[in-house]
């Protein structure tokens, strides 16, 4: 655990020596990287406790939702890294080693270990954006150092990965929503998610005019 803590601190500090060792000895950093990602996923779920509360989710269902969130986060991270890998390999005309890139991707979740702080009312949302920016910076710096690329190349490759993810999210909007909803229902036992925005839309409110008829 002490080793994971040390690696976490070095990742957050964008330590170039650490990212260089990702390329030379990726196997040694795989376990700490996975633990960091797990901590980040758990912390993210703690930050989202409001949504779960709104949906009356507790006990085993809460645990299922936590695991589900961790899996989704890992899948998204792997897809983004894979896209970055494809783009970089095509542009450089030689396949980059995948494992170091995967570890950089897992490392980039390090700032999200503080995601529980996003539960802070109002300021939490701003903190969430800061963590995301920090996370992206880790990917860029990590890719640059791990593969000894210039900063702008690393930025270009990672940006391509990010853009691809955004496009994918928009193009696959409907099927992803359907799958997400099915998985959510399986994990939590609730057919739909009620968010604060749903409440704001006024959907559950019965108009007074209807209810007042015959009352007074």
């Amino acid at each position, binding site marked *: 655990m002490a080793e994971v803590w040390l690696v976490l601190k070095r990742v957050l500090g964008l330590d170039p020596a650490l990212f260089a060792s990702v390329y030379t000895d990726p196997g040694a950093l795989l376990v700490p990287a996975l633990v960091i990602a797990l901590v980040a996923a758990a912390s993210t779920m703690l930050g989202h406790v409001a949504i779960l509360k709104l949906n009356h989710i507790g006990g085993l269902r809460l645990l299922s939702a936590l695991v589900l969130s961790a899996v989704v986060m890992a899948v998204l991270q792997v897809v983004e890294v894979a896209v970055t890998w494809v783009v970089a390999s095509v542009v450089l005309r030689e396949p980059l080693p995948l494992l170091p890139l995967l570890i950089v991707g897992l490392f980039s979740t390090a700032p999200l270990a503080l995601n529980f702080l996003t539960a802070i*009312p109002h300021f939490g949302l701003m903190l969430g954006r800061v963590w995301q920016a920090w996370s992206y910076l880790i990917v860029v710096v990590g890719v640059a150092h791990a593969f000894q690329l210039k900063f702008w190349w690393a930025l270009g490759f990672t940006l391509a990965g990010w853009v691809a993810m955004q496009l994918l999210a928009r193009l696959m909007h409907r099927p992803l929503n359907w799958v997400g909803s099915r998985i959510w229902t399986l994990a939590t036992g609730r057919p739909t998610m009620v968010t604060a925005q749903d*409440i704001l839309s*006024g959907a559950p409110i019965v108009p*007074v005019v209807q209810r*007042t008829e015959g009352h007074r």
Partner: protein
Amino acid sequence: MIAWILGTLAIAALVFVLLSPLESLRWWADRGEREVRDTFELLPEESCADTDSHRFLVYLSGVGVLGGDELSGRELAWLESVAAEVPDVTVVADVFPYSVDNSGLLQRATVWLWGFLDRVRRRMYSNPLHFLINFRNITQVLVSSDPRYGPTQSIGLAQEIWHSLQRHGYVPGSGDPVYLAGFSGGAQMALGAGWFLRGIGVPVSLISIGGIFGDDPGLDRMGHVWHLSGSKDRMQHLGDVVFPGRWPTAPLSTWGRAKREGRVTKRVIGPMQHDGAKAYFGRRSFGPDGRNYAEITRDAVVEILREPAPSDPVLPAR
């Protein structure tokens, strides 16, 4: 040792802030959703006063208040003076804005803590300990302004305001205008609740008295927003700073939209500070024309109440 104490206090404050949304979330999970489904219940006729008023002023106090029935002497005197000036307006001032179910801090299991802090405030004002009351209520202002938690908080408050309006004679469906007068953080709470009140057909406007508020969605449903401030009140600028939706860089926010549509009026009414004897309800501090601060504030509010009621805003397409 000092660092240890400060660190402990900081962690305690962080935990307190982190837990602050739980009150409204627990309420929503336990009974709020059910109540709202039956909602905005109508009170039995015997609980409602008869009134000839067709205008209502709902006063929501600042973050120093302990409960709906715990207004300061200055506030009570000021509200009486407003009611005397505009007898055709019904003044409602029994809602605790920083709670989803109108339970004041002295009506809870932690009454011993809030009662103690209140006694400290009365006897040793210089002791900063009593600011824990303000801190607690400020966290609820932050909850209200957060799009994730705000709606659950605001729907509870709106329901309490709705009940109180009916107790004071408001006839549901009448379309009588309601002015939400929010002092300090009460302005943000008013905006949050205003969204839901307008949703059930109550025309609402906001009179902010040194109000601190964000770019709440409720702004879209306010007929008009009057922001009254004192030239020496620096606290009221917090809203301009802390809420990015109020920055000039956010012209598309609800605040930017309200300003663009001419639904915001800002008035500096005198040299008031934010809180205390030299603030908006002070009776021993006087403006250049000889009126005391409470009278200046009263006259500004009465002038608004005597204007024709604002028309409904055009809701943005969603």
